[in-house]
């Protein structure tokens, strides 16, 4: 599935992070190539969110290196905004800007960062709103939309920056069951178009369908990396077996 000559987009080597004395991440090594889709799973508190938030430096790591498209990111990096524009992020709680219309939510980034005109930004925004199937809601405010619609807007907002890689942090966990499919469909379409994606999720159907690799984390470490079929049917580590049995138990 994966082109052997694809260039590495995100390279994490020997990365460690502490919150005070608490070791949240330890010796994380992970390389994600262009066009690759990686699903991250693991028990609550295992450091999944922390790991992907380090990639665009919403959290600062203390040891090791993270490279995005060849550029090392660190808390000292002057042009961290430049990196963040290449990395789209979708949050569990949507985090749309409530005081702006849907359209303004989408055009804010491009007009401020890419220096493009209002008109161009508008066209760009409408294009992505159509892709997530909610173009008709453009003039509404976030509170007027359902959770699933808000999350799709959030995806469109990230896409408007034309990112090289998209990070998803449990994008469907805050949604009512009937809303989940719509969001997953959008993500699957995105994957089929070749977007590089790192997705924290427990949606096994999604992982089976799109993931090239599944990364299993526990207690701040990467325990296992495997192809989805193999990981779900025949996990190697005890901890992954336990985690999967609990996940399927429900």
């Amino acid at each position, binding site marked *: 599935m994966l082109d052997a000559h694809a260039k590495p987009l995100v390279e994490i080597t020997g990365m460690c992070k502490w919150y005070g004395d608490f070791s949240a991440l330890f010796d994380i090594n992970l390389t994600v190539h262009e066009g690759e889709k990686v699903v991250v799973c693991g028990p609550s508190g295992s450091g999944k969110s922390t790991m992907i938030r380090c990639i665009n430096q*919403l959290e600062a790591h203390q040891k090791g290196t993270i490279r995005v498209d060849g550029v090392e990111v660190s808390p000292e990096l002057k042009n961290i905004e430049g990196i963040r524009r290449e990395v789209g992020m979708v*949050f569990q709680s949507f985090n749309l800007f409530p005081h702006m219309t849907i359209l303004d939510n989408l055009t*804010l*980034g491009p007009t401020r960062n890419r220096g493009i005109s209002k008109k161009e930004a508008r066209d760009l925004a409408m294009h992505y709103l159509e892709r997530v199937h909610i173009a008709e809601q453009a003039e509404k405010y976030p509170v007027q939309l359902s959770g699933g619609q808000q999350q799709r807007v*959030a995806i469109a*907002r990230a896409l408007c*920056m034309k990112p090289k890689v998209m990070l998803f942090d449990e994008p469907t966990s805050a949604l009512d069951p009937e809303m989940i499919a719509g969001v997953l469909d959008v993500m699957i379409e995105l994957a089929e178009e070749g977007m590089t994606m790192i997705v924290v999720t427990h949606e096994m159907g999604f992982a089976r369908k799109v993931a090239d690799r599944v990364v299993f984390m526990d207690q701040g470490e990467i325990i296992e990396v495997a192809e989805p079929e193999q990981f779900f049917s025949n996990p190697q580590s005890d901890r992954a077996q336990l985690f999967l049995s609990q996940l399927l138990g429900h």
Partner: protein
Amino acid sequence: MDRNSPPPAPPRKRLTIVDYLLFASVIGLIVFASYRVNDVLVYHWNWSRVFGFIIRFDEETGSWVANLLMYGLATTLRLAVWGTIFATIIGILMGYWRTVDNLTLRIISRSYVELVRNIPPVVFIFIFYFFISSQLFPALGVDDIDRDGYIVNTWAFWILFGDPALLSNFLAGVLCLAMFEGAYVTEIVRAGIQAVPKGQWEAARAIGLSRTNVLKDVILPQALRKILPPMAGQFITLIKDSAIVSLISIQELTFLATEVAATTTKVFETWILVGAMYFVLCYSFALLFAWLERRAARSRR
């Protein structure tokens, strides 16, 4: 039971014997106080002398013109408006500094707030006034601005700043008041910024906005919306607090009332009247803000 029957009426609120006793004692106190003033102090009420200081009849032109207390009221209003504008500017800047990572900025803003809040207002105003009038204004050349009077003698200037001859006096009052109230605005703004959910900062950063844009486009608009009600309250507090700058001879309502009380010797009348003027002013603003707030709440989706 019939589902469609109306809900039972809520219990009526009734006055109890305690309420009646309270009313009676309040009225009793007022009656006693007026008896003391009239009969024991043998005080001669003369309201018309004091009213003449609000508006008076000008014999020369044959019309009614505003007098000292009206001028004072106008100055108080100008002080309040300009004071609020500057206090808001100071408050937004300092309030933001209270929330940043940079230690120096945090120390500056924190010291400012603590300094103002832990010194009696009168003392603060005296110190700051001394600094303004002896250092700042001479350095800025405030008294030499517009010698030829092109701007100063216009209508707009009079409405905005009052008598040009008293300009530096007025500006000193505005600055003192703004510095003083700015500390309270700072705390309101800080609370407003901190009330914006963390996810908003993260989402704004994640799309690559610069620090300034995160603040200007995402955080401040939401924070300011949240702090509008406390800011309205602070504006009314500022009107009342403006009385304090009478101590540095700013010619606002309280300062002029002191003069009126001295010339007429009608102390009670003057201060009761001035109290009523402040009350009307502040209460009108309170009603206005309450109305605006209700309207905003209704228009919000």
